């Protein structure tokens, strides 16, 4: 083969490979009989229980639940990657326009290790602790030890709701201290706080159990009845979001979640029902 012929041969092969690569990149995915959900880790355990109960009613349906955080849920449903996005905060004008379905309400608990002697704080104290103004437990009635502040990543709905309800007022808004440890889910914060008496963090009511202690805020204990009747100050809505009004299996699943059976599961899991 002459050298000239060799060069054009190489060029043809390169073009062929490039074309194949581009064609493969254009492939999409589909699937029916499946509902996919992603987003808030606060909603995740609740959604998994709802999905399991829904499967008992409609055995040939598949509901896939993923986490990732509120912002992942909003982005994924807007991009069409999933059918339902879960959010654990109010939507803002910065968020893309999506159809909202109020699934439940949820309190945010301020938690610390089970052996910490502090049992309650005022909202102002919580604000100062997370803002880095109060740095030692002895300033709030506890032992003489540095406070280890643990928060969620910036895209977390729980964090955004916490910032709106605790850090933002009174004006000017206080920023969470930048040396706070950032962990990527409710479960991660729970594990970290459970193993460290001097840690403080915030998690959803649905994650509370005996491994951590929820502090009373402004004298009000962190329980579901208190959140439901409005005396507990840090409560936010949990939403299922869809790109447009849902149809088909997605609509069936959301209707089930909002039905008395679904809301009974909501209460059972430690969240506040909307009916």
């Amino acid at each position, binding site marked *: 083969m002459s050298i000239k012929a060799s060069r054009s041969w*190489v060029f043809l092969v*390169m073009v062929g*490979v490039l074309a194949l690569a581009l064609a493969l990149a254009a492939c999409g995915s589909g699937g029916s009989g499946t509902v996919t959900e992603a987003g808030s880790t606060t909603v995740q355990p609740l959604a998994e229980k709802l999905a399991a109960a829904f499967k008992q009613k409609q055995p040939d349906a598949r509901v896939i639940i993923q986490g990732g955080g*509120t912002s992942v849920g909003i*982005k994924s449903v807007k991009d069409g990657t999933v059918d339902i996005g879960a959010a654990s905060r109010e939507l803002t004008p910065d968020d893309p326009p999506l159809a909202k379905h109020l699934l439940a309400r949820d309190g945010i608990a301020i938690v610390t290790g089970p052996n910490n002697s502090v049992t309650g704080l005022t909202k102002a104290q919580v604000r100062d602790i997370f803002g880095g103004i109060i740095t030692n437990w002895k300033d709030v009635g506890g032992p003489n030890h540095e406070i280890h502040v*643990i928060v969620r*990543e910036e895209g977390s709905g729980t964090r955004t709701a916490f910032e709106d309800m605790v850090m933002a007022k009174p004006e000017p808004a206080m920023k969470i201290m*930048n040396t706070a440890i*950032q962990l990527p889910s409710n479960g991660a914060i729970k594990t970290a706080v459970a193993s460290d008496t001097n840690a403080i963090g915030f998690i959803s009511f649905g994650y509370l159990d005996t491994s951590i202690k929820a502090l009373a805020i402004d004298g009000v204990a962190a329980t579901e009845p208190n959140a439901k009747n409005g005396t507990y100050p840090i409560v936010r809505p949990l939403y299922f979001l869809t790109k447009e009004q849902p149809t088909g299996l997605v609509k069936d699943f959301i209707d089930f979640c909002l039905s008395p059976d679904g809301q009974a599961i909501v209460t059972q899991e430690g969240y506040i029902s909307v009916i």
Partner: protein
Amino acid sequence: MAFAPPFLPVTSVVKDMKSRYLIDRSSKAVVLVCATACFVILLAIVVFTLREALPAFRQVGLLDFLFGKEWSPGNKEFGILPIIVGSVVVTAGALIIAVPLGIACAILLAEVAPSRVRQFLRPTVELLVGIPSVVYGLVGMVLIVPLIRQIGGSGYSVAAGVIVLTGMVLPTIISISEDSIRAVPKSYKEGALALGATQWQTIWRVLLPAARSGIMASIILAMGRAIGEAMAMIMVLGNAAVIPTSLLGPARTLAGSIAVEVNYASGVHQSALFATAVVLFLMVIIVNSMALVVLRRGGRVQNVG
């Protein structure tokens, strides 16, 4: 093509030649396709990353991005200096510990240990090379973070990151350095010993310098793995985007920063993460070039790979 054995009938020789020619041509084609695909993919990754990073560089400004001290996407602030420092500190810390330890262990395995010990240790080291980073991260989070907490701080610290990274790169350095030391021709060692050198003099002044390029290669590989490590670092460093002021304070690495935020970032934030990736590329290139310079100065220019 003209050397057909005389006793074969002409037709079967022609068929043979045709199929040989076809096999030759098609294997060449397959290899060419694979090589081109590799090259195209690599080029595509680089071009795509650069293109996605441009909006951030334009909007934030190159200097503000590289030397800005505040990384706060919620407030539209994109300065990655603390994250660059975090990456450098954690990588440097891990290498300072792992390189001497790893080379010493390699010398042990290659020259000093009895063969039964080596037969046991060497496969163990190879196994450790293959363990996924997430496992190291898990062990770090569950074991090392609480231990560091006893000393001070919350446990999520530079110290924990350095320990975990050291554990990750040590097996790589050991196994490749040991191979290079073993690859030194026996005549070097025999010559040195014959001239009256002690075992240590032989190792330190003859074998190690001769194995220098392989050892450098292992260090470069280790550095590459350390700089690029995301999963384990997210689990033990605490991800606070601040310049680390103490070993017990939290930090964030470039790769970790991308991994923690990429799922939900959009717009300028997403572009800033791609820009972080470009900085990561550049760091790896700089580090590799420095290593090549050191190698060339050392005299023996061999393929670092």
